[in-house]
């Protein structure tokens, strides 16, 4: 069982993801924005972060910039689950992987619940 920090601004979609991840035994904390995500990680260190980049206020990039600047959070796997396509992310994708430690980028509309659960399991297992 792992503790997942889910950063998803659409609360209805977030509930669906939470049900799927909880079904396979994980605990999930959902936040809608960057500041809440930092606070949540501070309260309980996640085993993995699943994040949308499009957030109200501060973006997912700002969150990751902040998140990765804390040494105890440097190695926590982060998976993006975003409405941005690969083409839209292409210009900055090297920075995402190299500097912000993104393990994988999932295109939200095409990522099934099963895919999400599988990817989460892969990266949690890799760290354990």
């Amino acid at each position, binding site marked *: 069982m792992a503790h997942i920090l889910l950063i998803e601004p*659409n609360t209805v979609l977030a509930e669906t993801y939470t049900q799927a991840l909880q079904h396979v035994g994980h605990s999930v904390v959902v936040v*809608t924005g960057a500041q809440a995500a930092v606070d949540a990680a501070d309260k309980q260190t996640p085993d993995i972060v699943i994040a949308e980049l499009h*957030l*109200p*206020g501060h973006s997912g990039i700002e969150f990751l910039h902040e998140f990765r600047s804390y040494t105890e959070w440097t190695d926590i796997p982060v998976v993006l689950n975003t*409405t941005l396509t690969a083409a839209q992310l292409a210009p900055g994708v090297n920075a995402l992987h190299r500097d912000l430690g993104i393990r994988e980028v999932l295109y939200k*509309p095409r990522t099934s619940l099963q895919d999400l659960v599988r990817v989460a399991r892969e990266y949690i297992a890799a760290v354990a």
Partner: protein
Amino acid sequence: MGKVVDGVGGVRADSLLLSVAEHLKVPLTTIARQAELGQLTGQAELIDAAAIRTQAVAALTLVDSYLLGLELMSKQASLELEPVSVSSTLVDAAHDLEQFARQYRVELEVSIGGKFGPVMCHPNGLRAALLSLGFALVEAQASQDMQGPRRVVLATHRTPLGIVAGVYGRYEALNSERWRAALGLVGTARQPLTNLMPGSGAGLFVADTIMRSMNAQLRVGRYQQQRGLATTLKPSSQLQFV
């Protein structure tokens, strides 16, 4: 590129389409993921059919409102306006938004600030605009990174300039400058109103396009210490409702 719906201050048709298309990813993804929940868990009862229906209705309303907006803008010079009761339209819109707001755990209120007569506008247009605005601002309210209750108010009241109808809530970051800048960013920036909402904000710009066809474009307004977007409509001198 594309047809300019309104060259002055409004959003270009191609940019609006881009915005609508981007936005539709969200309700359609929500519907797809909800439908999968039963398959993943083996518990069909987990599928929230009401949620699927509400998301579908919101998405279809946006599509219809977008198409109406294009139609009204193309007919702008010859648009036939009728006397319309703002309060009735507001109440109807709130009724249609109720389930959606409940799903997002946002309290919905209606506030009719007095008795006033009808306004001159396109009846379907006003309703579509209020719905588009309402769906977008309910979702935005739910996503705000803040503490405290989440509430959206559909309100109408009289001012010296006319009858104002709008949708309001706790949107601290919303101001006129940001709204004007956002209108110019649709189709260019993926989040034209980043401090207000995480997505493209399509519902807001569709609502503005509709109201702009009646020369009643949306402006940032305040109502009882809350901020929102509202339109100002001229009272009709033709008929007076009691």
